[in-house]
């Protein structure tokens, strides 16, 4: 009877982990939870807000799942870099808008990632809440970030081995927010030396402690391809949009760090 109880406890733990409420990943394929017109308008509003601030490069984040379902301290589920770009359409017309440079999990291989450029309506397509995280770096950091991505050197920082709770202080695994942090630090320190970037991150970046049930982490690392604690020693820390914003702000390298809602409400972070 006692062992039956243990089994049932394990089953409940696994169920609670494999439910969609567990941890957030970086998927590009989530089904829409809002009317297309709402998403189109919101995506365009976010673009226009960033453009009104003269942002040529900014960090963008989305809320893929309800905050109550995420570990404490984590609000945004995916983060990427948006660059003001000349976009040549299929008909040859050249227009201006933001192209978003993402690290997404590969389709069908949750423990592997790929670099994908998409656009605001793609980015916000499957979100739970029409709220954007917007972090506009200082003009100098923007310049360096644009140079990094335009040169193609950003790709040298990509690690295909994906973990949703990747440790930002080593290069064993990487997730979307760690890639964003690596891009920023590469731009700031003008290097693509990953070992050096990790040393710098350890010295200056304060990661987010992932406060979730040890059972969830244990069973998650056993049964979910995109969850592993192999790269952690003890407590689990990972990169988030919020901790990246705090990092830039503490270093006086952030000019705007806010949430922007579908109602146009702007809240400082």
């Amino acid at each position, binding site marked *: 009877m006692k*062992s*039956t109880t243990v*089994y*049932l406890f*394990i*089953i409940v733990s*696994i*169920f609670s982990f*494999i439910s969609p409420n567990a941890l957030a990943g970086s*998927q*590009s394929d*989530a089904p*829409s939870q809002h009317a*297309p*017109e709402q998403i*189109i*308008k919101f995506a*365009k509003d976010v*673009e*226009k807000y960033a*453009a*009104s601030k*003269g*942002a*040529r490069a900014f960090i963008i984040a989305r809320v893929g799942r309800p905050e109550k379902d995420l570990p404490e301290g984590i609000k945004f589920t995916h983060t990427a870099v948006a*660059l*003001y*770009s*000349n*976009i*040549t*359409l*299929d*008909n*040859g*017309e*050249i*227009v*201006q*808008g933001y*192209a978003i440079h993402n690290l997404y999990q*590969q*389709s*069908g291989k*949750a423990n592997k990632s790929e670099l*994908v*450029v*998409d*656009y*605001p*309506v793609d980015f916000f*397509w499957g979100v739970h809440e029409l709220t954007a995280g917007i972090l506009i770096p200082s*003009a100098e950091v923007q*310049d360096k970030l*644009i140079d990094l991505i*335009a*040169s193609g050197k950003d790709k040298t920082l990509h690690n295909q081995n994906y973990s949703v709770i990747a440790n930002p202080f080593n290069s064993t695994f990487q997730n979307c927010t760690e890639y964003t942090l690596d891009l920023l630090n590469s731009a700031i320190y003008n290097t693509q030396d990953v070992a050096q970037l990790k040393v710098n991150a350890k010295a200056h970046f304060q990661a987010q402690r992932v406060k979730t049930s040890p059972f969830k982490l244990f069973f998650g690392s056993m*049964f*979910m*391809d995109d969850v592993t604690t192999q790269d952690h020693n003890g407590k689990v820390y990972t990169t988030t949009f919020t901790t990246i914003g705090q990092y830039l702000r503490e270093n006086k390298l952030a000019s705007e760090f806010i949430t922007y809602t579908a109602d146009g409400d702007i809240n400082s972070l």
Partner: protein
Amino acid sequence: MKRVTSALIMILSMASLNTQAAGSAHHSGQASKHTALAASEGVASTAKVASVALVTPVIVAGGVSLVAGSVVAEAGDALSDGLKSSHASSHHHHHQHTLIITEHTITADPAPSQVINKK
């Protein structure tokens, strides 16, 4: 006890299936997105859905706007429109003026497998 073990095995199978299903949902999700966007064109009067042939970051260097990977002559022409509203301050890096944003709804194309399978 055996039943509990069976249940555990079944759930573990479901867990792995769940992971795979989430992956394969990529294409169906993309397909429905493009269908929905196409359908919404008639609703949003000014916004047209457009696919992309080429995208290049806008670089502002030494007061001259450049398109990464393009020759300067092309870049100058293309960007003189894009940065029209910030032209007055384009002689330094730190302009805070509004940038022009297209009213088109730009979207990434569907996955290659979907494009090929449609043909």
